[in-house]
């Protein structure tokens, strides 16, 4: 028997949906507009503002930088995050309870504060190169996400499986790679994707750390907006959205989105 849904509930749901998706549709419309200024609804249809992204040298370079920073810092974060999550899950009883809180602290601290602190310390104190600062900053930014996701998938891992392997003659380190990792593989993939998206979309940390010659896509977008108010802004936004949605679609296809919610 089909349940009868109150019309008001349907209306409310529709409103929420419009509220969430509306702005995205406006941006998409604006990006497709054939005008030289941002407008909605689009007047005439054109893809020239998408083409424009790749014609502007700064955008080409920052897209590349953003991808490089995202890939490298995600990789570094996994390299730190996997063993850290492992240790915290494996020795949960022996370790103090506040330790896992400590590892997610960077999420709780306003990112601007983190960015400023990094600027002061990395850039001013140690004179670190911009690219390196970005890698370090983004690694700190995404590490908590990596640890959260991998810890979640380790929470359902039965560590007696690891002991079984050891008792059968497999040394501990080998066991980590041949038994533990294959069983948290989906968690590692999810962490990778979440970290990657977070890094590519980051503004608040990058804005402190980018500098002459090296910038990331979202920062370049802000800089561009200050000078020009043309639909390029919208088309870059759409590009970032498409990238995010594409990555999410891959997760959804391979693992299911419920996975990230775990």
């Amino acid at each position, binding site marked *: 028997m089909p349940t009868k849904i109150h019309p008001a509930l349907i209306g409310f749901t529709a409103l929420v949906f419009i509220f969430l998706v509306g702005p995205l549709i406006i941006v998409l419309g604006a990006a497709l507009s054939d005008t030289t200024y941002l407008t909605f609804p689009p007047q005439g249809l054109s893809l020239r503002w998408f083409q424009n992204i790749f014609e502007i040298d700064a955008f080409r370079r920052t897209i590349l930088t953003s991808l490089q920073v995202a890939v490298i810092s995600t990789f570094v974060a996994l390299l730190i995050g996997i063993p850290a999550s492992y240790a915290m899950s494996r020795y949960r009883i*022996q370790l103090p309870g506040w330790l896992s809180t400590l590892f997610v602290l960077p999420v709780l601290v306003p990112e601007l504060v983190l960015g400023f602190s990094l600027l002061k310390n990395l850039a001013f104190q140690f004179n670190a190169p911009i690219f390196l600062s970005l890698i370090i900053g983004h690694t700190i930014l995404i590490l908590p996400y990596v640890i959260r996701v991998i810890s979640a998938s380790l929470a359902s891992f*039965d560590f*007696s*499986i690891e*002991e*079984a*392997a*050891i*008792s*059968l*003659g*497999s*040394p*501990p380190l080998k*066991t980590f790679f041949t*038994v533990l990792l*294959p*069983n948290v593989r989906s968690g590692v993939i999810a962490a990778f994707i979440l970290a990657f998206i977070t890094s590519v979309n980051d503004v608040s940390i990058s804005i402190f750390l980018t500098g002459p010659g090296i910038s990331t896509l979202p920062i370049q977008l802000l800089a561009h907006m200050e000078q020009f108010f043309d639909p390029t802004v919208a088309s870059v936004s759409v590009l970032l959205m498409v990238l995010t949605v594409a990555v999410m679609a891959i997760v959804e296809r391979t693992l299911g989105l419920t996975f990230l919610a775990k």
Partner: protein
Amino acid sequence: MTKPLSIRNITAHYGQTKVLEDLSLDIAGGELVSLLGASGCGKTTTLRLVAGFLQPTSGSITLGGKDLTKLPAHQRDIGLVFQNYALFPHLSVAENVGFGLKQRGISGEAKTKRVGAMLERVGLAHLAERLPGALSGGQKQRVALARALVIEPPLLMFDEPLSNLDAKLRVDMRVEIRQLQRANGTTSVYVTHDQEEAFSISDRVAIMHAGKIMQLDTPENLYQRPANAFVARFVGFENLVPMKVVARDGAKITAEAAGGVKLTLSLEHFGAIPDNFVLACRADGLAVTDNPGAEGIPATLGLRTYLGRAYQYQSETAAGTLVANGPLSKPLEPGSSAKLVPVPDQCTILAVE
């Protein structure tokens, strides 16, 4: 090539908490010894120390004369069977069983043959390509058993292997485990909290409490002649009555309990009886009778429960509340007076602690 296991003066701590105290245990080659006790008694700790997952604070562990104490876990060559099976979820049944062989550099034809033969023995040859997720509990535990046996370890250890299975399967599996263990003559340590399981499967049982072995003996001896009050209670002696010998007369003694209750006991049955002792009886060991002339402990009967083979009475006596059984043929009413007559076969004498 059966190897004896020797645990000597092991003390172990979890952080500051002492969990085992000066524990020694010798298991002969080919023998199956159970560690039996409530949770927290130290039985699993003992197993994990032997497996090498924990380090003792002091003491030593040797297997067939080889010192294991400092050896890393993966070099100890011990077959382990876990409570929750601990199968590798990403490997097939055959790969699970072959895992230990692979670590020993056995591969190809030789490995396939041994895995095949082992799966045949546990009756799972037809499931070789399945993943563990697609198996029932009993099948999983058979795979775990095969995985531990196939490496032909000199020592097998079981950590509550049957507690996740249902009652019927549990009985079948323990027979199967015992048969495989006998056939291979593998020295074995079996950890369980289930008394029936421990008694039915073991050559000897160590009853543990608070990090110590209270008694290590054959199931028969433990059941009939517990060495102390703890073990007596553990194996079901409900009634522990402290008594004092007041008269000795050849083969008989007369002893008195609190409240002036007097009993005559035969030395023939109990052997030597010290001046102060504890008479330990199961409910079956105190026969309820309404014959006022019987020689027994005078009691006022309380709650009566039906056991199927007898009626059980909570009985108030001058020596305290005792639990005693009476015949089905003659149910007695609560509140009536009766005598509780000790049945020597179901009673034993304990030293005062």
